[in-house]
């Protein structure tokens, strides 16, 4: 009987010891989590904080040494919205240009991508793999490497300073991703759906419009978001192909600020924030759909 109590006492002691060890480990791990979390928050937010800080400076107060807004003012945002600086004369025009290019790229990438994936994946066209490989090749060629010949070709076609030259380039680079995602997603839809419609006498365009597109809606949203953000964020092709102030887009106009030494930094940062707002909003709105599309392989930078 005594041995039992000794054992029980021993085991309760070791149990207490392990319990305190577990508690200590949990405490350390929680402390580590807090430290790492804080580091990540600061790391992620510093350049964005800097953007906000400078945009809130009143005119001429940019060249100071404080690290928080001393006299915050929304003057520079107002200046952007009312085109109140000579750098920003055409701001709304440029905003509209960015929107137009984004919308067109989204539309054509979705249209061409879905048609191609329908013909390859659903209709099983012979040599469809050749088209898939062409798309794959486009996806892995860096777009910037083709910029110089592309610029030359557009000059030869007489498409210089024309938004359609940018749309053509961006559709060419966005569609391959659309084709992959649609083909991947299409695999989850049984082919029998198409076949039974075919037996009922539906023609391929009818199957495409009435059956394929509605079933593909989630993938269409994911790819549409991707294409829109790609066009909105792209810089190099827009910079090379659009030169006049009335045809350029917001990122190109934003980069124009950097060309002079006496840049109005507060206006520049306010422009940068207004330009960043739509993609950030879209990103957070479609986050779940986006990450579903992401698992395919990646968004091209």
């Amino acid at each position, binding site marked *: 009987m005594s041995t039992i109590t000794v054992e029980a006492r021993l085991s309760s002691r070791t149990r207490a010891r392990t319990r305190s060890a577990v508690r200590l480990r949990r405490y350390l791990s929680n402390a580590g*989590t807090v430290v790492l979390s804080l580091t*990540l*928050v600061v790391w*992620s937010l510093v*350049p*964005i904080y*800097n953007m906000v800080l*400078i945009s809130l400076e009143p005119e001429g107060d*940019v*060249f100071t*040494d404080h*690290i928080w807004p001393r006299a915050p003012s929304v003057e520079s945002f107002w200046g952007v919205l009312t085109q109140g600086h000579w750098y920003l004369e055409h701001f709304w025009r440029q905003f509209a240009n960015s929107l137009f290019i984004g919308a067109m790229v989204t539309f054509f990438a979705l*249209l*061409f*991508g879905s*048609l*191609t994936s329908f*013909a390859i994946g659903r*209709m*099983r066209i*012979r040599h469809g793999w050749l088209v898939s490989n*062409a798309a794959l*090749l*486009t996806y*892995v*060629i*860096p777009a*910037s490497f083709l*910029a*110089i*010949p*592309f610029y*030359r*070709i557009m000059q030869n076609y007489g498409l210089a300073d024309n938004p359609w030259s940018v749309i*053509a380039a961006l*559709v*060419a680079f966005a*569609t391959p991703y659309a*084709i992959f995602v649609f083909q*991947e997603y299409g695999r989850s839809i049984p082919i029998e759906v198409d076949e039974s419609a075919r037996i009922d006498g539906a023609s*391929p365009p009818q199957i*495409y419009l009435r059956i394929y597109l509605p079933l593909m809606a989630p993938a269409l949203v994911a790819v549409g978001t991707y294409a829109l953000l790609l066009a*909105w*964020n792209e*810089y*190099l092709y827009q910079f*090379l192909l659009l030169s006049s102030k009335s045809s350029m887009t917001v990122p190109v106009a*934003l980069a124009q*600020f*950097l060309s002079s030494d006496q840049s109005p930094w507060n206006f520049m940062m306010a422009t*940068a924030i207004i*330009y*960043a707002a739509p*993609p*950030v909003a879209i990103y957070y709105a479609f986050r779940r759909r986006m990450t579903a599309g*992401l698992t*395919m*392989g*990646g968004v091209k*930078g």
Partner: protein
Amino acid sequence: MTDSASVVDVGRPAVRRGTLSRSLRGGLKGGEYTWAVAFVVPYVAVFAAFVAYPVVYGLWMGSEASLYRELFADPIYQSTVVNTILYLALGVNVKMFLALLLSGFFMRPGWWMKALLLIFVLPWAVPQISTFISIHWMLNGEWGFLNNVLYALFHTEGPSWLNDRWTALGAVIVSHIWKWTPFWTLILLAGRMAIPVEIRDSARVDGATGVRGFVHITFPLLANLYLICTLLSTIFLLGDFNAVTFVSGGGPANSTHVLATLGIRDAFEIANPRLGVAAVMSALPMVIPLVIILMRKLRTAEVQL
């Protein structure tokens, strides 16, 4: 005669004239085949006009050997090659390693992790141009935020970050890591989530937790994905134009260019497009093997996530 013919035909489906044309069309009936072709034509036309043609045109522009002699003799090109290699080696690997570790961190449960993830992906959600311009000004020696913070905290004057080749290049690399780590973390996080719970549970029962579990269970399962991500990110980084252009501007004195920005500079700033194409084409010995490996990997693996 007939025997030998039948020997040849063994193992081959008997193809008559009528069915031959049908098999070429992949079993589609006449009208359907026309539709299928019509559906593929728009993309094929886009590919031919805006990808294949520029590729061929570029190869033709950069086909003179004398261009490369001129290029290799250029000291700016020589430092550009060093920069590109450093940018690739550090940018890709540090970023991917951080993404691998952080994707494990974000596997932890709780609302706190979800909220943190929302903040963490912000660098990726904000357009590159905005943030890189902000970083450029942040690193200004006199009025930049970074040096203001250094002064406020330690009362020391920070250096002019962008006036020295190595700190400027370092700034470009860190900016790239800052911008793209969240994206690859999300990809690897999705990869980790796809590992069946049963595998992780049974590994835990067998005592494979923490580092052991990572080395023996998680990483082998993630290895293929990690490799594909690394290769893709190498290609993307090689074509990256924005980080260098906006953070360092290629300066000071053209010492921090990478191949993508040097090509554009040669073509448009010193108006020698052929030299610009040659600068970009000099990366082909690296690009071609990468493209071949990636095409194989992406086609066969279907990116198992």
